[in-house]
């Protein structure tokens, strides 16, 4: 892989991590309100998948999408300003954390109804196929979304008409507080996809290189006319479901197991539920970012000092984003009404 790509992916992961930790802080200060679903732990998926896509491919995401937007290239300023509800935000302060849009980068949103990304992505893919274009639509969804009827309907249609869509399931093993074996009769998500005759594979979502590789190949297969593809990325979120969720339903040892890169023992399910303390979090070993950093340093793609510099760079970007968001103007009700009606501005209604 090119050095440049490796660097870009690491930088993206660091940016996502720093951005989200800061968002959590700003939430506690009251600068961000509403539901805030954070991404730490899952950065390897966004970085691996989106960096494998081309500029004319489309991305459709859910409510845990800050990382997806950042990796896609939306300036951190616009992402943060949206969280602050400002007119300079990527959705002009209208959408907030769960509804981020950047159509110029073909980042098509930001949907908070579980499962909704599927038909929307399939619809964009239908348009692409009908036009005979070489573009692909990447559709993110969680493990919990697999049980929504819309998932089923969408995959059947995507396969029936061989639409150019790559489904990426970010399987973090939980739908809020419900663990996957308690919400899915077949907890191996990729196996369920056999029902639609869509090639599906499960990969290690904590390893950005594997994610990138798998995505690249899947996109190639799609562009060669292979129809829709499905990738299940096994991953984990380090925080609660949203800032409103203490995450107490997950055993601390489970969280640690992921962060220190061990396979989860089946036994841990019976462990008493308890969210890890900050101390416990601090003493935890390597996570997906650490793993990648180690790989890059070991492989001499990067020196430790470079990583430090990168960390400082992204921190600056995040600080700047917060400053920008703080100083930005609020949207007005007039602008809201304009957005609502912008599509019929030149039409005579009555």
């Amino acid at each position, binding site marked *: 892989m090119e050095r440049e790509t490796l660097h870009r992916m690491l930088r993206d992961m660091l940016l996502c991590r720093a951005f989200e930790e800061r968002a959590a802080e700003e939430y506690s200060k009251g600068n961000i309100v509403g539901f805030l679903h954070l991404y730490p732990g899952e950065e390897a998926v966004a970085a691996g998948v989106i960096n494998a896509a081309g500029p004319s491919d489309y991305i459709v995401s859910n409510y845990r999408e800050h990382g997806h937007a950042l990796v896609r290239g939306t300036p951190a300023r616009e992402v943060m300003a949206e969280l602050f509800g400002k007119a300079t935000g990527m959705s002009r302060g209208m*959408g907030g954390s769960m509804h981020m849009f950047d159509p110029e980068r073909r980042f098509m949103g930001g949907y908070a109804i579980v499962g909704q990304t599927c038909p929307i992505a399939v*619809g964009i893919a239908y348009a692409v196929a009908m036009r005979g274009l070489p573009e692909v639509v990447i559709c993110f969804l969680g493990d919990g979304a697999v049980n929504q009827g819309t998932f089923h309907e969408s995959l059947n249609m995507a396969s029936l008409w061989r639409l150019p869509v790559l489904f990426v399931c970010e399987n973090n093993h939980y739908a809020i507080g419900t663990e996957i074996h308690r919400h899915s009769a077949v907890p191996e998500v990729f196996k369920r996809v056999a029902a639609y005759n869509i090639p599906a594979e499960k990969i290690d979502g904590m390893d950005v290189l594997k994610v990138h590789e798998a995505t690249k190949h899947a996109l190639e297969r799609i562009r060669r006319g292979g129809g829709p593809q499905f990738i299940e990325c096994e991953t984990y979120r380090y925080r609660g479901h949203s800032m409103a969720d203490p995450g107490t339903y997950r055993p601390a040892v489970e969280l640690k197991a992921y962060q220190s890169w061990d396979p989860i023992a089946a036994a841990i399910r019976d462990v008493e539920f308890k969210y890890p303390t900050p101390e416990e979090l601090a003493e935890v070993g390597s996570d997906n970012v650490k793993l990648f950093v180690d790989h890059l340093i070991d492989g001499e793609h990067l020196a430790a000092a470079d990583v430090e510099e990168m960390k400082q760079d992204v921190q600056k970007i995040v600080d700047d984003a917060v400053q920008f968001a703080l100083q930005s103007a609020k949207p007005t009700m007039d602008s809201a009404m304009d957005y609502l009606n912008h599509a019929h501005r030149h039409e005579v209604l009555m």
Partner: protein
Amino acid sequence: MSQELLYWQALNRAMDHEMAADDSVFTLGEDVGLYGGSYRVTEGLYAKYGEWRVRDTPISENGFTGLGVGAALVGMRPVVEIMTINFMLLALDSIVNGAAKIPLMSGGRLKVPLVVRVPGGIARQLAAQHAQRLEHTLMNVPGLRIAVPSTPQDAYWQLRQAIASDDPIILLEHELLYFTKGPVDFAAEAPPMHRAIVRRQGRDVTIVSYSRHAVLAQDAASELAKEGIEAAVIDLRSLKPVDWDTCAASVEKTHRLLVVEEDCRFAGAGAEISAALTERCFYSLDAPVQRLAGLDIPTPYNGALEAASIPQIADIVAAARQLCQAASESKAA
């Protein structure tokens, strides 16, 4: 210039004209293609435009309606046919949480030029799960527009306007209107999509209605004329937005308003019409606005009960007559 067409044929021509003019227009739904559409609206289009532009879907209402939303986001102009409005309950998430909200939610960065065509209303003994109206459900959703054509000409005009518009628009078609006939002039200039039309001028009472019941109201007005009651009949043509000006102008002349709808009375479309026009014309009204509406009951299968569950011409006549009497008595008193 104009030719006599059935309502479904008028819709069919509108589809054909739009599809011929713009290759981003496509239609999808259950049995719209090979089969030619349950009410024949898409007849012949599959052969003419091929399977990508006339797409038969699986029975996956939320899925294929959501597909339409997605395609609309990237510049296509999808016309989704939901086989009947009864199945739209399954697709409401795509319509309400999707199509209607994306323009605002994206800060005006995306448009949703989607049309959803749905046959609905009370037809002939289709029973509770196939005989309902969701007018009110849709009216309460900000971001949607709703057209309710009652004539072949309006069907032609409004479907074309809906396809040409960049907004998400629902076209409510009435199952008992598909085989009604009327003149259609393809070349005539269309009135604005949401303008109400005064189908009949009148002096004594204003009857506001829409869709099939606008037709029944005109028949009722002819009856009433025989008794010397001159009823104005306004066909709303649109349920969102509603052309209040046209309605208010008539009410201010007649001082009495009867709202006729097929929708269930409780919280039906008529509630908004009655409330809004009362607010506006309160001091011109000689009597409270009357609503004549469907009974608040799931539609029974039995034919006589089905008929009794929605207003018939005789009911409209009686209600208008009573309203005129009540108003003149109260005035006299």
